[in-house]
């Protein structure tokens, strides 16, 4: 297995992605969605009080990306993570093209590596697009006023921007964790509907657990807990405990899922 080989496969997968309608739709939604939301907040009189920073959406543009962040954890991030990750392997089963790509000069390891890299890259790109777009939407539609933080303190615009950007970065590990989960389901079920749908369902169920006062350790082991780790960045004295935990849990999910997926693919008999 060589890096050059993996990159060759990544290039091919990206070309295929670029030719598909769904990638363009998803990325377009990531860019347009926050603007629609910001416009709605500007126009309507009531504000979302059930999400953190919802009360502040009319007062500071920096609240918009944080509300999107809070709302996104429920199903948006799992969907963004799975839409490519859950299809990248099972698409070959759907089209019958495993034979076609495995009879070239790339080993199964390189094909696996390239597809995983593509899936992770797309998830990161979608999150980044959503982040940039929400910040832009907030600042352009509402303004760059100082933000009231989670300790009641007033955060100046420059610091607010940095905190918001960092908050979005912390959401990458769990999103990539969902991508890895979607990938292993895609390999195991050979079915894109399962590869995309099951992680989203799993995410919803994990989020439901947040409402239950069950064992704390179990809650920490759920990858969705990592979606809320950014709260500690918006307090007067920041705390990083949940962030550290969340990143470690996400890393574990990524490693475990990818190792399992790799083994399954390596040992599979194609056709026959």
């Amino acid at each position, binding site marked *: 297995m060589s890096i*050059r*080989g993996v990159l*060759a*496969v990544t*290039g*091919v997968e990206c*070309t*295929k992605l670029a*030719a*598909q309608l769904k990638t363009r739709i998803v990325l377009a939604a990531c860019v347009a969605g926050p603007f629609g939301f910001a416009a709605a907040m500007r126009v309507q009189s009531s504000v979302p009080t059930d999400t953190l920073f919802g009360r502040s959406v009319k007062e500071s543009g920096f609240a918009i990306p944080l509300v999107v962040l809070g709302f996104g954890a429920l199903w948006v991030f799992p969907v963004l993570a799975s839409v490519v990750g859950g299809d990248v392997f099972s698409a070959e089963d759907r*089209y*019958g*093209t*495993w*034979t*076609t*790509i*495995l*009879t*070239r*000069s*790339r*080993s*199964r*390891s*390189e094909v696996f590596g390239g597809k995983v890299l593509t899936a992770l890259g797309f998830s990161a790109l979608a999150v980044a697009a959503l982040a940039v777009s929400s910040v832009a939407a907030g600042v352009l539609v509402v303004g760059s006023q100082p933000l009231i933080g989670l300790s009641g303190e007033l955060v100046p615009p420059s610091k607010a921007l940095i905190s918001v950007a960092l908050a979005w970065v912390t959401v990458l590990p769990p999103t990539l964790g969902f991508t890895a989960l979607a990938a292993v389901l895609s390999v195991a079920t050979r079915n894109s509907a399962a590869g995309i749908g099951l992680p989203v369902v799993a995410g919803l169920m994990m989020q439901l657990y947040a409402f239950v006062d069950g064992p704390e350790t179990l809650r920490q082991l759920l990858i969705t807990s990592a979606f809320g780790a950014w709260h500690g960045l918006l307090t007067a004295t920041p705390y990083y405990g949940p962030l550290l935990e969340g990143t470690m849990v996400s890393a574990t999910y990524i490693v475990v899922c990818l190792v399992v997926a790799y083994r399954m693919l*390596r*040992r599979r*008999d*194609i*056709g*026959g």
Partner: protein
Amino acid sequence: MERFALEALGVSKRYGRHEALSSVDLVARPGQLHGLLGPNGAGKTTLMRVMLGLVRCDAGAVRLLGAGRDLSIGRVPDGVAGFVETPAFYPYLSGRKNLALLVRLDGDGGAGGDRVERALEQIGLGPQAEVTVGSYSAGMRQRLGLAAALLRSPRLLFLDEPTSSLDPRGARDVRAIARRLADEGTAVIWSSHDMAEVEELCDMLTVIDRGRVVFSGATGELRQLAPAAVFLLRTSNNDAALELASSQPGVRATSLTDGALEVSADIEALDAYVVALGRAGIAVRLLERHQRSLESLFLDLTEHGAAETRAASRGAMNDSGPSQAAS
């Protein structure tokens, strides 16, 4: 140049209780057009999948172009190409774009464009190459599959029923390509259930039935063992005619599914048989030359018994390497 382009020895594969391949040997030299003949479900496609690294065999060794295959690496060596069953491509991309992607997978991004054009020219897809593969017919996909294989400038080429969806002209073109490649030194493994096509096209033959090799050797040997042309006979009493044939010297008859008989005999034995039928009160309703069926071929091969096939293969050994005796 390697002595053998392909050496598959003792390949066995079992799926659950079904033994798909049972100690199969297949050996081909460079420049040989080697036919792999057998009915559907005999294991031809499974064997090709094993050789291309798509399926792991339970036992046996495969060497492509002199290099032993490590299946876990799963990389098809340079100079080896092929397709199994109807080739599949990405339906949302054009034929040309599909080939361009495959060239990139082969690690040839820069010079790729020329290769693609040359391959498309060879298989004659023309302006259809711009259309998305989703709208291709099976025949067009087969041509594209051949083009995809030709991209790799193969010295060992596996073709799985490459003319099954083509019209006669297309089939003729593909046969010409295979012939030309073989003349240029490429070993071509051509699998088919069409005996006439394979016997006409290939120099060497391996016949497979239910996962076992029943014949391996030169086409000429097979013709000697089991002539290709037979007669189709319909009578007023097919069962009695079959029984009568067994007592006629030089006449071998097998019953076909629709009740008619397939008779293998030289012209004198046939004449004597027809006369005997008349004397026995069995009327001949139809007698014509007929392309023999695979079933009767296998019956012949196994009936002939080990002795004869072994003799034939000893002769073939000088030419093709080890072969499997029928059981």
